[in-house]
């Protein structure tokens, strides 16, 4: 208990407290000066406004798209629903800044689609600009709509079919039933999913960084990055506090809706399959539309990444003569890339192991031993879940980059940040894993004469093992592709894979960046398959 508390204190509470505290500090005195600065310079308060409207627009589009697709896939007789569903979820398994890179390759000024358009219509320039607010909203939507899709699909599946059948028996037609029965019943799920998309878009760094900074279009996360580069810690912490505030409000709303949803007793996990809606004449047109859409958002970006990785140089004509493997051999020999791969693997493995270890400890104290105060510990450990990763990185700089403990420029500060970022995920997995191990199994061991250590060794841990391995991979996989935290904390020699891909892309070495990204994607997809196998398809994408 004491060890876990100290860990949470050092990695979560103290750093985050530093952010809040420093935002009210000016030259060692308490003041509101940093906040005044934010609101007196248009470029800063505009970042706040930009963040809010970009996230709102993203959430709105995600709600429309996610609901529509969830409905098509769950409630209609659309052909090939299961495969479509798997493919839809695929983009979310890849990091969002990979998506930004792929969409730049496709829609950017010399992108594949732009060139295709040029060839077909002979127009001089494409009618869109990916480096813009619109581009950011587009890529964010394509990345986050899946959150709405998953919540709404779940609600639709759990809905009692008899509610609709009762409406039909009362004489209502299909359209009327959908509008007056089905839609109101899944509305909480739609809004909850929309808020998740909002929070995701708000905290996202990679997409607005790659698409917005070039056009000098800033949101909160990229402004914090900018403020750190000045460096102006007062400004960075004030912006961070506002970012956390907006995230907390939306999270509270989301939590409220989820709680409220449980009042709809109809959506209570009954295994009655709702009737499939016959699409009739529009079945195949809709199928075609969905297939094209899925190809467009999940297959084509991946292909684009692979294709770019295979090109002799970015912008080369698309002929077989211009295909090469030299980018892969180059990136594999690149010292920075090698170092980044070993750094990321090291950080991922250590973070996953430590987070699962502490997570298991906290969960055991909370779920099984039910010790006093363990609930508070559990809550404190899940706080970082509500904190955008940019803010966590700042927190680590404030807490652990000054004497007496100066970790700045070492891997340890990145590790500390990873631990804070992934601890909530670890605790949530271990909580649910341990909850599934029924209390009486451990009590039976006690009654058999087993003290705490044999009990853990022989009963609890073996039973929790599959869930814990899955949890380890669920931390390891996002950790090895992490960008937001590492880009703010890396120094020479402590680059991570995300940092190297980002810097290569930013410096214009797009085919090299794509080659490294392709290798990482292959690794992620393989890891994903392992996790699905381990958990019988419950976890993973």
């Amino acid at each position, binding site marked *: 208990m004491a060890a876990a508390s100290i860990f949470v204190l050092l990695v979560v509470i103290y750093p985050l407290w530093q952010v809040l505290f420093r935002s009210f500090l000016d030259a060692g005195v308490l003041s509101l000066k940093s906040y005044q600065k934010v609101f007196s310079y248009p470029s800063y308060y505009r970042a706040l406004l930009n963040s809010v409207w970009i996230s709102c627009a993203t959430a709105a589009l995600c709600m429309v798209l996610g609901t529509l697709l969830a409905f098509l896939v769950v409630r209609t007789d659309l052909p090939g629903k299961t495969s479509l569903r798997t493919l839809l979820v695929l983009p979310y398994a890849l990091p969002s800044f990979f998506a930004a890179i792929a969409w730049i390759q496709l829609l950017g000024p010399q992108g594949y689609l732009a060139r295709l358009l040029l060839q077909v219509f002979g127009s001089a320039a494409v009618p869109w600009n990916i480096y813009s607010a619109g581009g950011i909203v587009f890529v964010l939507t394509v990345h986050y709509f899946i959150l709405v899709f998953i919540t709404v699909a779940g609600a639709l599946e759990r809905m009692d079919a008899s509610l609709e059948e009762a409406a039909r028996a009362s004489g209502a037609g299909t359209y009327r039933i959908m509008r007056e029965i089905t839609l109101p019943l899944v509305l909480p799920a739609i809004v909850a999913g929309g808020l998740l998309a909002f929070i995701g878009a708000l905290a996202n760094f990679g997409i607005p960084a790659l698409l917005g900074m070039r056009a000098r279009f800033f949101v909160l996360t990229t402004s914090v990055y900018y403020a750190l580069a000045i460096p102006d810690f007062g400004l960075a912490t004030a912006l961070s506090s506002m970012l956390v505030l907006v995230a907390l409000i939306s999270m509270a709303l989301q939590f409220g809706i989820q709680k409220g949803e449980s009042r709809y007793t109809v959506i209570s996990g009954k295994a009655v399959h709702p009737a499939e809606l016959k699409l009739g004449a529009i079945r195949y047109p809709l199928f075609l539309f969905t297939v094209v859409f899925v190809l467009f958002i999940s297959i084509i970006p991946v292909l684009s990444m692979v294709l770019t990785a295979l090109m002799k140089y970015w912008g080369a004509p698309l002929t077989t003569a211009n295909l090469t493997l030299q980018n892969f051999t180059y990136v594999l020999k690149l010292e920075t890339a090698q170092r980044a791969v070993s750094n990321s693997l090291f950080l991922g493995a250590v973070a996953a192991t430590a987070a699962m270890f502490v997570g298991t400890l906290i969960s055991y104290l909370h779920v099984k031993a039910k010790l006093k105060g363990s609930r508070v510990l559990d809550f404190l450990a899940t706080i970082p879940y509500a904190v955008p990763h940019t803010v966590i990185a700042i927190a680590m700089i404030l807490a652990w980059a000054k004497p007496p403990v100066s970790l700045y420029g070492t891997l340890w500060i990145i590790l500390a940040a990873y631990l804070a970022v992934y601890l909530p995920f670890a605790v949530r997995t271990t909580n649910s894993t341990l909850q599934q191990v029924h209390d009486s*199994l451990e*009590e039976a061991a006690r*009654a058999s004469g087993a003290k705490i250590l044999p009990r853990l060794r022989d009963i609890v841990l073996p*039973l929790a093992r599959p869930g814990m391995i899955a949890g380890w991979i669920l931390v390891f996989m996002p950790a090895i592709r992490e960008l937001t935290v590492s880009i703010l904390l890396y120094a020479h020699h402590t680059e991570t894979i995300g940092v190297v891909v980002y810097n290569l892309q930013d410096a214009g070495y797009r085919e090299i960046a794509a080659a490294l990204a392709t290798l990482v994607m292959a690794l992620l997809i393989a890891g994903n398959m392992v996790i699905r196998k381990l958990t019988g398809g419950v976890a993973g994408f």
Partner: protein
Amino acid sequence: MDKIRISRLSKKYGKVLAVDSVTLAVEDKEFFSLLGPSGCGKSTVLRCVAGLEVPSEGEVYIGATRVNSSADGINVPTELRPIGMVFQNYAVWPHMTVHDNVAYPLKLKKLPKELIETKLKDALHTVGLERLSDRYPSQLSGGEQQRVALARALIKEPEVLLLDEPLSNLDAKLREQMRFELKDLQRRTGIPILYVTHDQAEALAMSDHLAVMNAGRIVQVGTPAEIYTQPADRFVADFIGLMNFVPGRILSRNGEEATVEFLSGHRLSVADRSDLSGECLVAVRPEDISLSPAGPIRCRVVVRSYAGHLIDYKVRADGAVLRVQTAKTEVYKEGEELGLAVQQAILFAARES
């Protein structure tokens, strides 16, 4: 000597008093049941004996050892208590074979391998599982998992066996069979059993003594026959078996016999040793009412329901509806007018004090 002795045991959860000053004793070789509706605190008492809950007040002895004392701050951990326990959901470890499940308590004692195998064979033989030794729990039926749990509880040769609703997850047929097996097993091993159940038929069938609990308190302790024929209060009368309650008035007393008058004016002599007078409640078991065309109290059959070994009637007499059970040969039609006679009744105060 008492194998389990509980004195003035109380357990509070926050402000809720789940167990209220319970005192009881289980003798050697005795089958003792705690019976009561769900939420009455019976499982909490058992879990206090097991050490899985810490009592707020009171003392618990297992054999001569004091395992709990709130006054002296004693709380022996479960793993050091000489108990065997069987859980409602069996709690057979799914990642271990039958062999490993049952051998586990001995493995913890670090006994030599050969000795473990010998004892294991005995234990599996006792519950009739010799041939399933290498199976995993998922390959066993509910009844077989039950036996694994029993063998695992017995193998460490505990001083007492604690059973927490062990039969409630089995289907009806198997439950009846296991009743006899448990009883038989206890006779053979002589181990004292503290048994928790909400099933009164189970408790009556198996127990040497039982304690009926309600709202955290013990309401009555006795042999099954005592509990059935002389329920201490209305709650016990109602909870154990079937009971008709009819309001009445005590007119007079003559020694150990009281004369009761029903609202309709009919009178009845009841053996009663209480000091009740005036308004009262007359409790009659369905099998203590007989039907015949000549019975003194006129009634009409409302519903007849055939139960195989008996016939269950609902009859209306003087505005009251009574449940009557007769032998399977006494067949009357629904709507038929006839008479009833009360063979035996118990008197309770009209209002619970």
